[in-house]
């Protein structure tokens, strides 16, 4: 609570976020580079199927697609209840980054699915299909921000949509799972089934990298957003004075 009211002031947020924005980004890049190096350039013994190497990029993207949305839900809740300016900016800035992670998860999942089922898209995989719906929710959320006339109204509308999406996601996931069982697929292989300990640790490191990158990029976009708002305010004030 104290942290929240502390950051309600954009100036304090700007002062405190400068180094974390670059620091988290650098940390993310470093950890992901390690994950790529382990996964791509220095493959493990072939006890594992080669396809398991896709996990290093795919699974963390799927996690982050959900994590970013959960982060937006939290920020929207704070924004809605306390009308917290930084929370609005946080939710708005996280959305495109979350959408990128979701897109990565979908595309890599599609490739992984092709090596497993022989089709580029499998409607019987409830997890991928749910994330596809989540991707559309991201798009709608971003569209709401762009469509509203005033930033205040856009913030309210976007936070409402984010919360509505959160309430509906479990039902959507349930229905998609029900659908997948109905149209039974031959094999249900989840990425985790193939993971053994030696594969899991680099994957977790890679996931930490994704998480740090998400934090860094979100902070960068938040800073950009606050600077733009401030610049526009100054321009308007000068025009009013002229």
């Amino acid at each position, binding site marked *: 609570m104290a942290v929240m009211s502390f950051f309600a002031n954009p100036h304090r947020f700007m002062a405190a976020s400068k180094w974390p924005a670059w620091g988290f980004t650098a940390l993310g890049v470093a950890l992901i580079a390690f994950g790529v190096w382990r996964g791509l350039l220095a493959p493990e013994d072939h006890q594992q199927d080669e396809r398991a190497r896709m996990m290093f990029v795919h699974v963390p993207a799927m996690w982050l697609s959900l994590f970013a949305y959960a982060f937006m839900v939290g920020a929207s809740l704070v924004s809605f209840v306390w009308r917290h300016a930084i929370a609005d900016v946080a939710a708005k800035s996280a959305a495109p980054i979350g959408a990128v992670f979701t897109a990565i998860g979908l595309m890599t999942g599609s490739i992984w699915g092709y090596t497993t089922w022989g089709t580029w898209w499998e409607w019987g995989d409830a997890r991928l299909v749910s994330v596809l*719906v989540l991707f559309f*929710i991201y798009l709608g959320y971003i569209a*709401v921000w762009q469509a509203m*006339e005033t930033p205040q109204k856009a913030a309210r509308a976007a936070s*409402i*949509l984010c919360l509505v999406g959160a309430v509906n996601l479990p*039902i*959507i996931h*349930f229905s998609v799972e029900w*659908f997948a069982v109905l149209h039974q697929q031959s094999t249900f292989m989840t990425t985790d089934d193939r993971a053994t300990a030696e594969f899991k640790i680099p994957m977790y490191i890679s996931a930490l990298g994704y998480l740090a990158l998400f934090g860094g990029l979100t902070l960068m976009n938040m800073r950009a957003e606050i600077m733009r708002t401030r610049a526009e305010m100054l321009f308007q004030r000068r025009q009013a004075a002229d």
Partner: protein
Amino acid sequence: MSGSFAVFMRELKLAWSGGGGAALPVGFFAAAASMTPFAVGSDTIALQTAGPGVIWIALALSSLLPMERLFQADLEDGTLDAYASSGVGMEGIALAKTLAHWIATGIPLALVSPILWIMLQGAPEASGLVAGAALVGSLAFFFFGSVGAALAAGMRRGGLLIALVTLPLYVPTMIFGAATLDAAASGGDWLGPLMLTGSAALFGIATSPFGAAMALRTAID
């Protein structure tokens, strides 16, 4: 409660007396479903396979049509303000307006659906079931749509935004409803999917008025 009932009666009268509030969506529904044979061919088996899904998609899109004007007109001419200042809760207003529009438009859509079903070579015996499923399904579509309608009410060109925001929320109703029609076509167990469609509708009725009300209060400010 009596306040929202008054809103409901007024909206219902308006929808009926306006004359043909349902004509446009019903016309779209019929025309969209009638495109199927041109796309999949006139083969009976092909039509029977595609029919349930096509009818259900057309129903969902037809339910989206009235959404653009669901709250927008009342927001523009200040009716919503008048409702709000008369002490009726915004949730009650959202519920009453959506329900009134469903009665005026959703029920006609459901009544037309068996005709389209038979045109797409569905078994005539299943007509009642198709109408019933469409009745429940359109109720769900209208209520989930009301949230998108309320979010877009303050915008000049909100129609496409409503579709983008609402279609993900349509997924459960889409799955369960189409499965009901599929079961009706193949003579399988339709009660389970129909019950699930009903639960999607109930969930929509229980949660959507709150989301719509929050959005409408923002739009009024």
